[in-house]
């Protein structure tokens, strides 16, 4: 754990539950590859911090948007920031998240940065993503375009998940309604149902899939 990262984060309040989910899943997926090098292509400072802290600061960070300013973020470990053209190849890469204006460029860069047998994890904004503060207001690139882009670059999706979709939102709404009705006992039960319904494995091959209506998605891909 890198303390300066955590200190500049928000140590006295938790990040969004959905961010915890995607970051823990990213760390768990890529941890076996950590000895061979990890990279984080981040569209926001919070994405970079959250993933980097889970990798104990041992990852190269590539800002895909202009969120990094050394003068304004003195606590961010500057040595982790790298330029894509002179960085060494890595075995595991997090891409959080593709944006409409930079996705094509960064896909090409990731293609060069990731070793031939490397694993790529992509965080995808869903239709309910706008409320996630850690995204830094990033415009969503979308599931369909992300899958298409990965396919064009010969990546095959191995697994995909969505977080906080329609069912968990429904229980979150019930939680709020029961709390307002003076029934905290039922509100708590609704929250547990919300947490149980929070994650869904999705079939990325289907063009119409309600489970994609979610806050964030997570794709694990490797080259064909």
């Amino acid at each position, binding site marked *: *754990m890198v*303390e300066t990262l*955590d*200190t500049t984060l928000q*140590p*006295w*309040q*938790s990040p969004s*539950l959905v961010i*915890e*989910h995607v970051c*823990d*899943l990213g*760390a*768990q997926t890529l*941890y*076996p590859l950590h000895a061979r090098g990890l990279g984080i292509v981040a569209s926001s400072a919070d994405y970079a911090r959250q993933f980097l*802290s*889970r990798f*104990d600061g041992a990852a190269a960070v590539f800002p895909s948007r202009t969120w990094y300013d050394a003068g304004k973020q003195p606590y961010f470990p500057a040595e982790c920031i790298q330029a894509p053209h002179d960085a060494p190849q890595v075995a595991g890469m997090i891409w959080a998240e593709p944006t409409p204006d930079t996705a094509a460029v960064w896909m090409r860069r990731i293609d060069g940065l990731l070793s031939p047998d490397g694993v790529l994890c992509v965080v995808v904004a869903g239709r309910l993503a706008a409320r996630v503060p850690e995204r830094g207001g990033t415009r969503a690139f979308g599931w369909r375009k992300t899958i298409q882009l990965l396919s064009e670059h010969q990546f095959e999706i191995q697994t995909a*998940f969505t977080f906080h979709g329609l069912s968990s939102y429904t229980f979150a709404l019930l939680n709020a309604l029961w709390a307002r009705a003076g*029934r*905290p*006992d039922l509100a*708590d*039960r609704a929250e*547990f*149902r919300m*947490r*149980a319904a*929070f*994650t*869904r*494995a999705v079939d990325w091959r289907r063009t119409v899939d309600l489970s994609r209506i979610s806050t964030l998605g997570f794709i694990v891909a490797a080259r064909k």
Partner: protein
Amino acid sequence: MRAAAPRAGYGGPVAHWWKNNLQFTGAALDWRYEGIINAYLNLYRATNDRRWLEKAARAGDDLIAGQFPSGSYPDSSFEQNPYTSGRPHEAAVDIGLCALAAVLRAEGDPRWQRYAQTVQHNLYDYLIPRLWDESARSLRDARHLPSFVPNKAATFCEAVFLLADLTGDAAGIARYALPTLDAILKFQVQTGDLAGAIYQNQLNGVRVARFMPYYAARVVPAMLYGYAHTGRAVYVDAALQALRFCYRWRDPDGAFVQMIYPNGRVNRYPRWVAGAADIVRAGDLLKPHGFDGDSARSLTWILDGQHPNGGVGTARGFGSQSSQQAPGDLPEFRDILPVCGWADKAFRYLTGLIPANATLPTLETPDRADIECSLHGRPARYHEDRTVIELWQRDTLLYRWNKGEPWAAICTSALLWK
């Protein structure tokens, strides 16, 4: 459960009422150290075998080595890990360190000073400057938000008392601990079915009317320190009331109800197994002050939750957390999961029952446990040995933690819930 990298310490998955954390399994410097250190010290006191003292010191060394320059501890947030600044976890760590330092000092071992300095650094350079609310005269739970959580504040008070005992400087007691104890007293219900219960927390001036026997019991040791220091009966009375509330909400099988709400509504499940030891221990602390609750049934409840290989299960009824229907015959996966930050409570309590000058029996303990359980209502099989914890459903491996690793090797979508 010990991990070597990236940091030495005790790791493993976590199940909790508030949240689960099955993916991050690294060494966590949280409240598990309060119980682990005290348990080893109990064994040392009972047997005079220095091996136990050195195990306690090794745990203390984890904390010294891990402490950040700021005074905070890494991965100190238990079910919320991997994050720092865990409350009450950092203060609970300090309690363990103080207990270790006190034993070493009594033996003339100079190592005690390093442990005491670690506590001093955490309390006075980190927690107090960031969380002390001078206007409210109590410890906040969130830095930038008026907030108060009595059980967490009580853990902080306990650490302040214990450090003062070590250093001889009681200024912190007058300035921080006693005002905080007085703030906790205002959160205790005085009349009715919930008499003795303590509000769970207050946020932005609004009290949250949730009452948990476990957290009421966590307040007892600090109240007793307050009583010992001041002689004010109000503290011991509050502790007695809190424990009587806990025991009124104990089921016939010795387990304690999880959560009670106004008007007598409850969310009974899951009921703690290992964690129940903290409640029973609080009862034992209060016996000299007139508490007459019978702890035998609860002790049986805890012992019945022990696995063949020595691990202690976390609870019964996690699978009923949403429905609150009575659990079936099979425990849920999280019920039997031996979680370091819960098992330490049982470890501490049970070792405290060993009489002085005891010779520990040699046990033929199997090094594995295979337990039938359930997940999402379907049968599953828990397996643990010296190297792994696994969960299987038929021939499918759903979960694997290779002990010592900071992240689970396998955690399928069925278990991706927090």
